[in-house]
């Protein structure tokens, strides 16, 4: 060995119990030779591999991650977990690429229980490949701090990414070709950038600003984004009051908590009041309520996810409610809702990209004489025909 020390890649394997793990076992029993770098974690199904596992592996300095499952169509569960693994790996590769890591560091293969030799062959190929890429981050020219920062930002987004996957990135037909076609299409690229890329940028900006205050130029340099992109994100954040609420006004929250503390059922009242003041419930606030009132976070989440009164995401500057109570319904609220959706370009439950409007449908507020009606920021606008609604909405900035 020339330099006295060689790079020994650290590789983590997630193998499904029924096929690949048995395959690897067979490789061993049959005395096939392959590099000993892989450490194996056995799972019941390749579909069990959560993106968080992969990111955690990389965060802990693993240089490559291998996932092995049954051949498509042969998963041992009717949910066909290996298709889930397939789409998850496509998305994770995209994510790795997005933060500047080589997607080759992640590999998914199908190995049946009888294919011991196949397992050994794959390892004989994968391990030297990683060796060539060099240690994680160093190989790509990222310094340690930057690497950690980026991986952490992605990790934070995982619940959101899973949601996007479920709502927008699901392939309707379960065949390998269809998956390949979709995940290599421009459509996927577009959706990824729009839904995940932007969010990731925002997430990183917020993480940076949480540490210390920075100028737009500095942010663009650190994150390798164009200045115009950074300022676009900053604008949205500021209008959203996100920049402000990142540092939550703890005194105010404490005031609200103290006001109700000790009283019966204080939890619901505290949450309602914070929602009313702040228009949404940031995670740190929920944490604070949890500690101060000494109730588990799970119970808080049970309440705040029960109804749309509570919002876990920031709302737009103007909250538009279209009443869909029965009286308004028979008087034409469906058409009114359609018009509002067209006008502001979002569906109920959404906030537009400029954070100008959030749209919700509301149930009867007892002003049936006004039907159909819309309520903007608590102000009732009654007897609104679809052509009148434009005049109502144009008054809001």
């Amino acid at each position: 060995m020339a330099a006295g020390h060689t790079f020994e890649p650290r590789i983590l394997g997630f193998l499904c119990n029924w096929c690949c793990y048995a395959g690897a076992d067979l490789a061993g029993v049959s005395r096939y030779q392959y590099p000993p770098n892989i450490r194996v974690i056995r799972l019941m199904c390749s579909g069990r591999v959560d993106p968080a596992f992969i990111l955690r592996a990389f965060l802990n300095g693993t240089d490559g991650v291998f996932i092995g499952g049954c051949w498509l169509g042969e998963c041992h569960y009717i949910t066909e977990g290996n298709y889930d693994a397939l789409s998850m790996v496509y998305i994770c590769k995209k994510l790795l690429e997005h933060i500047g890591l080589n997607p080759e560091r992640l590999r998914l293969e199908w190995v049946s229980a009888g294919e011991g030799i196949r397992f050994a062959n794959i390892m004989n190929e994968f391990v030297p490949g990683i060796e060539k890429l060099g240690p994680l981050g160093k190989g790509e020219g990222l310094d340690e701090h930057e690497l950690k920062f980026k991986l952490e930002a992605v990790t934070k987004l995982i619940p959101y990414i899973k949601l996007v996957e479920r709502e927008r990135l699901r392939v309707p037909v379960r065949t390998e070709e269809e998956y390949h076609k979709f995940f290599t299409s421009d459509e996927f690229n577009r959706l990824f950038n729009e839904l995940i890329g932007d969010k990731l940028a925002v997430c990183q900006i917020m993480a940076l600003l949480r540490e210390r205050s920075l100028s737009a130029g500095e942010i663009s340099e650190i994150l390798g984004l164009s200045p115009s992109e950074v300022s676009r994100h900053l604008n949205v954040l500021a209008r959203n009051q996100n920049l402000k609420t990142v540092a939550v006004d703890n005194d105010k929250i404490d005031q609200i908590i103290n006001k109700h503390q000790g009283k019966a059922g204080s939890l619901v009242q505290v949450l309602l009041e914070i929602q009313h003041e702040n228009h949404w419930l940031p995670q740190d606030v929920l944490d604070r309520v949890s500690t101060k009132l000494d109730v588990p976070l799970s119970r808080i989440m049970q309440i705040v996810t029960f109804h749309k009164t509570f919002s876990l995401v920031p709302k737009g500057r103007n909250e538009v409610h279209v009443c869909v109570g029965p009286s308004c319904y028979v008087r034409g609220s469906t058409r009114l809702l359609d018009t509002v959706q067209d006008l502001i370009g979002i569906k109920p439950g959404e906030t537009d990209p400029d954070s100008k409007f959030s749209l919700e449908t509301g149930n009867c507020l007892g002003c049936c004489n006004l039907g159909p009606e819309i309520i903007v920021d608590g102000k009732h606008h009654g007897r609104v025909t679809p052509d009148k609604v434009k005049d109502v909405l144009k008054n809001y900035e």
Partner: protein
Amino acid sequence: MPRINSASELEELRKGVLSKRDPDKPCIAICAGMGCLGLSNGRVISAFEKEINKKDLKTKVDIRATGCHGYCEKGPMVLIYPEEICYVEVTPKDVPEIVSQTVLRKKVIDRLIYADPDTGEKAAHQAEIPFYKNQMRHLIGNNAKIDPRSIDDYLAVGGYSALSKSLLKMSPEQILEEIKKAELRGRGGGGFPAGRKWETARNAPGKEKYVIVNGHEGELGAFMDRAILSGNPHSVLEGLIIGAYAIGSHQGFIYTRHDTPQLKNNIDMALTQAEEYGLLGENILGSGFDFHVEVHLDIGIFVSGESSALMRSIEGNPPEPRPKYIRTSVSGIWGKPSALNNVETWANVPLIIDKGSEWYTSTGTERSKGTKLVSLSGNIVNTGVAEVPFGTTVREIVFGIGGGIPNGKKIKAVHFGGPMGGSIPESLLDTPLDFDELAKLGAPIGAGSMLVLDEDTSMVDITRYFLDFLSNESCGKCVPCREGIRQMLRILTNIRDGKGREGDIELLEEISEVTGAASLCALGKTAADPLLSTLRYFRDEYEANIAKMKRSAEKREL
């Protein structure tokens, strides 16, 4: 403020309040109810204030922002006392004229008074307007005479005399007896006798007991509880204190909507004022009886109006119902006996104590006594809150008070009780308003919302609408409700969209039976009620929708 320590002091205070009031002094009462809110009543009120200031009339004319007058369709409403001239659909522009003509010169402004849309007949006084003429306004009548934020106004109309009578002259048993004799039935939906519920709570073991006002009013299209609770909060409070005394409770809760700030503000104000006068708190009216009240807000979930869910919500838990093998009147909040009644039920209590059960039972039908507040909405000319004696026919309410159907359309059905109610067709409109009569027809009265549907309405669609609502509101704790509603909704959606199949109706009936029998709380138990009632009266519509599908399928096969 003086603290009142006895009945005579209360009467003295009342005399003092009345002596300061000149019955001939003009007073402008402007509706500040929920329905008028969206019609810019705020601008009308401030226009009056400005005008009165400008003309330097502050000492000569009173302005009063009152609770809902009921006739929301024609809001904002303005009543000019002492002549009780009633102006409808008033705009800020009309204000100077009203002050100079009507208030100062007693002249009626012709263009602002009510004119019948059919006959053109005009009515200058509230009592002459057809909407009001056919009502019996025991509960809501005072709304126009009271500023909900002034306890003196309530005292001026005789408020809290029932409380003083109860606490100082009657024993709890006597009150219970009186309520039982009045046959007061719960107005929140079930129609359960209030006297029996109170008695159960009173006799339940344990020292600590609670009384609760259910002001959640989740029923879609119902808005009468709000009208009372925000327009005349003291009447509900008075009933609550009397009930607490009868049951032996020292802590009450008012549970109400978070999305209507007016409600909480007016209730909080009423509590503060009552406390200052010594009508609430320690040693009420010197009787030795202590009682405190807390206000709790809902989080906008329909099921939190259900008794056990509501109590869990007050405890600070998510509002999920529990099975009621043991009644909440025996084991409610924190396992203590808790008597829960609807806003309207409580508001009836002072009336009964004041005027006696005999007077009370003289109105109504065999098994439903007194009056009922109903809210009219949907395809109807006069949207609003009306109060009628039980026994009034549905036709009278819809046509006599409600003014019939707009745009010359014919009526198809009246839907009672929101998502857990049912519809009756045109042919049954002569049914009297009565808990049992309507329940027999499959359209229980519920809290009193009446949704009027015209001939263009598809009954399949409206049924689907209610199930859609319930599928969102089901808490998901029990499977029959969660899944049953979902599957019924799916089938109905198919039928509506012309994808129905033969056998769907029978399948719906089967699912509804299981859902009704096996669900945990009344939400699931009654979820299929709109479906069953429309299947009962409008089955042909379902069949026609399905047949349409079959025909087009056959055509394709040919």
